[in-house]
């Protein structure tokens, strides 16, 4: 019989009371970090300004102040809004983010659930946010919201396909849909017989990574694909009528999703929690794995915000054309190439 004091990973994995706070932390902490580091600070430096400086050292408490402000605000429902749908929409969007987090492996044993079809599940639940956005757009009883919601639906459906097809290349190469298996196959892989750094799939799947990041940018409705929330024409699209805590939920959803998608990209293309030089079965990864994953995630998330604040936005028809006429054929070619090479090599 194992002692309670001996660390048995299976024990905390099965404990609801520990998993829920860690899950919350896994969503909120990256979201907060991304908002402060990138949305407040990095972007300010790009735009030759300082960003928040007053709240806390270098404005690091600014986000708390913002959250406090949002929590205090009146919870406004437009008169003609469909009240139940209007109220539920932010939760649907946020739920999609939470469902995405659960499949992320942060160490050999540090997982919430270790699904055999992990990446397939992730792609499936990432689509749930479309429903929330459509709900928000429709229920707001506002023409800008409606236009934004419809645009978002069209865009997210169009970019769902390249997103999934970009992942297929990785799945073919790894030979598994299990997220843990994808990490391990990169950690244990070899580049032409040399196993020094494993075989991170970015080396072979760079086209897939490019398509994945473009599609993620569109999924997150960040510029240049921010037509659904285009603030210079649609005010803020489906978010127009939201204020206070419901806006906060959308806000968390947006930035937590940016973090989660970056983490998925880190797992798929950069070896997840693994760093070269340590045996992947080493228990130390249960401790440093989450930090490594977070580091890779932040590096990839920087790309998202870098692009967001550099590019103008596509028009709706142009971004549809980009998805259907360029990204999907490219990702199909990538899959074909990967399949052929997998068989040949």
């Amino acid at each position: 019989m194992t002692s309670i004091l001996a660390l048995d990973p299976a024990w905390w994995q099965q404990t609801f009371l520990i998993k829920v706070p860690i899950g919350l932390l896994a969503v909120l902490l990256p979201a907060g970090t991304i908002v402060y580091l990138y949305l407040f600070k990095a972007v300010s430096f790009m735009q030759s300004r300082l960003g928040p400086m007053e709240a806390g050292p270098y404005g690091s408490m600014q986000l708390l102040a913002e959250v406090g402000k949002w929590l205090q605000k009146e919870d406004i429902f437009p008169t003609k809004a469909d009240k139940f749908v209007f109220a539920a929409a932010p939760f649907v969007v946020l739920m999609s983010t939470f469902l995405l987090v659960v499949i992320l492996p942060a160490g050999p044993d540090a997982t919430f659930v270790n699904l055999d079809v992990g990446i397939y599940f992730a792609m499936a639940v990432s689509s749930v946010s479309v429903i929330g956005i459509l709900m928000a757009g429709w229920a707001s009883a506002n023409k800008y919201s409606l236009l934004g919601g419809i645009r978002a639906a069209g865009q997210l459906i169009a970019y769902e396909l390249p997103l999934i097809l970009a992942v297929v290349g990785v799945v073919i190469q790894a030979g598994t849909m299990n997220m843990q298996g994808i990490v391990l196959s990169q950690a244990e892989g070899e580049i032409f017989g040399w196993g020094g750094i494993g075989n991170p799939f970015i080396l072979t799947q760079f086209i897939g990574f490019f398509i994945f990041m473009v599609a993620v940018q569109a999924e997150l409705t960040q510029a240049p694909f921010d037509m659904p929330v285009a603030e210079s024409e649609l005010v803020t699209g489906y978010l127009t009528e939201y204020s206070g805590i419901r806006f906060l939920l959308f806000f968390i959803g947006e930035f937590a999703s940016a973090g989660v998608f970056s983490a998925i990209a880190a797992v798929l293309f950069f070896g997840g929690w693994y760093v070269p030089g340590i045996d992947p079965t080493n228990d130390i990864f249960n401790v440093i794995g989450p930090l490594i994953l977070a580091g890779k995630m932040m590096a990839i998330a920087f790309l998202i915000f870098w692009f967001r604040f550099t590019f103008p936005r596509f028009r709706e028809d142009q971004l549809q054309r980009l998805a259907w006429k360029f990204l999907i054929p490219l990702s199909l070619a990538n899959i074909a190439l990967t399949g052929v090479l997998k068989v040949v090599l």
Partner: protein
Amino acid sequence: MATTESDQMAYIAAQAADARVNVEVETDEGMTLNLGPQHPATHGTLRIVAKLDGEKVLAAEPIMGYMHRGYEKLTEVRTYPQVTTLVNRIDWLGSFANEVPFILAAEQLMEVEAPPRAQWIRTVLFELSRIANISLFLGDMAVQVGATTPVFYAFRDREFVLNQIERVTGGRFHPNFDRIGGLKDDLPKGWIEETGAVLGKMRDFCDEMEELVLGNEIFQARTRGIGVIPPDVALSYGLSGANLRASGIDWDIRRDANVGLVYDEVDWKVWTHPDGDSFSRFWVRLQETREAINILEQLLGGIPSGPIMAKVPRIIKVPAGEAYVATENPLGEMGFYVVSQGDLTPFRVKIRSASFSNMSITPWLLKGVFVPDIISILASLYFILGDIDR
């Protein structure tokens, strides 16, 4: 006629309802989208009522006048020197340029001419306000098509120009510096060298905008072939300024109908673009900013010495008569038609402002475009609300 208070209220409500029905072209087909008067894209209080079929615009109509301040009427109760304070606020981004045509018209009526030094400094300040105005357009156009960063660079670098204007005139935005017969003050010491350095910075800014905005594929996809104005249409709607030159019409008042400013003394070029689309309007303005820097560098080297004020009476009474003077302002042709009856105040002033005429093309231009293009086309036409509503 209604007498009781409730009758009056009912009368007002009926009038208001009538006005609303006239404005909102609500029909069975399509959806009416009301952009403004408070809307992020109009940087002011412009209202556009668009009838949509999905994302396609079936009809669009601009509704102006939310910011009307009655300047034409107010000039009738101001003495001539006081009017510059008002007209400063018409195109508030290039304020000094507004004063010039009015002062020139008044000078024409009084038959005085500013001394050469005053004319040169006027031209220098005129071109500086052009740079201050158009540099903001270059950033604003980018933000209207979705790139948030360039506008910060525009605000940052425009400040250098505004500082130079402030050092001469004492006002960043509203200089109120032009006088009938000359200028209020001479240039401060060391100003010419400082301005030379600022012009170098603005040249870098233009290069930055060219790389960051103009060269961007997405920007080109959003603007090329969008909002095309053929030359004959541009002329028939009375467009002026860069909007006209972007349609390929080689017309610039500075060169072709210059009054009172010293553009003949320098070597410069009028830029035109054959396409007439949003992209070419941006391109022409970018080149014009560079050309303005070029003009300024030549002007700064050759400012003649001498007085800055002609001999004018202490109390200005303008002889009876009429005069129209137009100048090539940052936004286009700005003209003042001044009627005097020999009083201290003008009898009547008609202001021909560029944005008002440029806006008149929008119902024709916005027909059949997509909703996002409404914004990019309006941004490329470049209006200042104060210039539309006066």
